[in-house]
């Protein structure tokens, strides 16, 4: 009984930690499938987190979510303007966008809440138990007694898969990522596709930031994404640019973090940092082809 509670708690924590990662990585999959690698993801999540905090304080949690999505999309549009429109180097542009977002969010946050920090009592998204499903022992609590963003993440997974692999738009998008020149010759408007895919990805990143604030942490702190945007990029690689794989990858990263809580609960003095390294090392192994075959879209980053 006791162990069942522990396992259920561990799984629930893993899913909760994985949710923002899953959302951001799902968006980044769309972006990367079109041949754009967006290292500004970290900044877009951060902007989303702050926008969610401010929106939720002013008009309630769901407005916060909407603000976050818009904030992510605005930053993504700036990224697309430079990296797709002006063909500036994607990696460096992405880094610059993240730097700018760190600076902007820090400044706006201090201005809005003062240096003492605030927004401690923002309205958050509570857990919503799905009747019936949440009664399933162990798994029910982990998957079906979570705040709304988790369900959004789970629902967007099959949706994105369907759009990418079963629609003409998805075909054009993947063609753009695999060979922009040929796609263009075939009549695909590649710049439009890449810009669109980047902005949609930015919206997901904003949503991820919102879920981090409103459904996981409950308040905003400067630089709170702490590299989660980069982790999401790693997850896209680990998940082989595939929505299903990404869900598993995100859960793996979530589990590594949740393990830390579990070990603390059990009072074990194990070096949890070593567990935190594992998913990154696994991603490197995946890149090297040791964990299944991995192939990036051929025109990624070009």
């Amino acid at each position, binding site marked *: 009984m006791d162990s069942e509670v522990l396992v259920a708690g561990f799984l629930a924590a893993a899913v909760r930690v994985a949710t923002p990662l899953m959302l951001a990585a799902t968006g980044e999959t769309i972006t990367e499938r079109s041949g754009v*690698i967006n*290292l500004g993801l970290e900044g877009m999540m951060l902007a989303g987190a702050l926008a969610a905090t401010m929106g939720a304080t002013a008009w309630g949690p769901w407005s916060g979510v909407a603000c976050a999505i818009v904030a992510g999309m605005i930053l993504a549009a700036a990224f697309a303007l*430079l990296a797709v429109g*002006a*063909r*500036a*180097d994607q*990696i*460096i*542009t992405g*880094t*610059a*966008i*993240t*730097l*700018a977002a*760190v*600076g*902007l969010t*820090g*400044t*706006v*946050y*201090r*201005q809005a809440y003062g*240096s003492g920090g605030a927004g401690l009592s923002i309205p958050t998204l509570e857990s919503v138990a799905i009747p019936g499903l949440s009664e399933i022992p162990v798994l029910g609590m982990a998957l079906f007694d979570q705040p709304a963003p988790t369900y959004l993440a789970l629902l967007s997974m099959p949706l994105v898969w369907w759009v990418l692999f079963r629609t003409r738009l998805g075909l054009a998008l993947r063609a753009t990522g695999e060979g922009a*020149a040929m796609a263009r010759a075939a009549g695909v408007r590649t710049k439009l596709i890449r810009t669109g895919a980047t902005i949609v990805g930015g919206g997901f990143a904003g949503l991820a930031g919102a879920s981090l604030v409103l459904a996981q942490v409950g308040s905003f702190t*400067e630089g709170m994404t702490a*590299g989660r945007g*980069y*982790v999401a*990029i*790693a997850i896209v*690689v680990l998940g082989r640019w595939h929505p299903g794989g990404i869900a598993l990858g995100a859960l793996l990263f979530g589990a590594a973090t949740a393990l830390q809580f579990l070990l603390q609960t059990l009072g074990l003095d194990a*070096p949890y*940092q*070593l567990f*935190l*390294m594992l998913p*990154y*090392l696994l*991603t*490197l192994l995946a*890149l*090297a*082809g040791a964990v299944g075959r991995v192939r*990036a879209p051929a025109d990624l*980053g*070009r």
Partner: protein
Amino acid sequence: MRALAWAIAAVGLGLAVLFLGLEAAGFSATAGLSALWLGAFGSWDAFTSSTLVRAVPLILIGLGISVAFRGGALNIGAEGQFYAGAIAATWVGLQLAGQPRPVAIAVLLLAAALAGLCWIVIPVWLKLRFGVIEVISTLLLNFVALSLVSFMVQGPLQEQGHIYPQSDPIAESARLPLLPGSRLHAGLILAVAGGLVLWFLFARTLWGFRLRAVGLGPRAAEVSGRIDSQGVGAMALLISGAIAGLAGGVAVSGVSYALFQNLSPGYGFTGLAVALLGGLHPIGVVISGILFGALEAGAGAMQRDAGIPAVAVYVVEAVVIVVALLATVPRGGWIGLRAVVRKRIAPGKAPG
């Protein structure tokens, strides 16, 4: 001269954006910028103990990144290599009590550079063996390094009281000498000397020629110069990692004297801006490193004296990076940088 004009335009635009942004956000921008200036150049103490101290790791990391860039590779894992170097430097520095100072310092710095080298060997090997792009692998290893530091300062390297997440201070003999009356350490000499050595290597040696050839066009270098472009690129990354590791060693030996969790306030990413603003030219990188050191030193003063968040200067950094990149698109701008970045964008493909 054009490069210089562009660089000045980039910094000017960055500061203008900061000024307007602060005004728009309701801060007193004039007070902010004057605090920034005074904090960076206002006094001899500010210049040496703040600006130059902050410039040292930025110059070193910027130099490292520019070596990789020149060879057509992008090392965004400098943060990780910096921490690898810092860990090694701390571990070695703790063992060196009683050794003669020059020996102790040399051993410490060598260990740091080696650790940075080892840290980047993994991405280089993955690239050569499996074709894994270095951008993702070096980025991932940043997080592994952060976890490793966290483990070290709460495990094997934790201070003897086992209370604080930090290491014991390193031996006195392993600390870099200071300029009397300031916190400026001899790492500056190292950074400037590093710039001069790299300048010589780039401009005057066959190795430097090969490196630039590969960076400008790997296929052309292979076909016309029979240069092993993979090997040259790998070597550039290795050197880049070693320099970033060295920066970690210098930070421990010259400033912190101990290992902390947040030893680097994002040097790896600021280093990218430093390298780009410096036009990937070693001397340019030294100058832009000092400029960014001033910016970060001034940012601290701006927060203290004008109540403006220090992170606001990241916006300046971002603008500088973007202008530097855009300057690579039209004619003119950074010579060399343009060609290198172009090649990264569309290797072997028609632009458009």
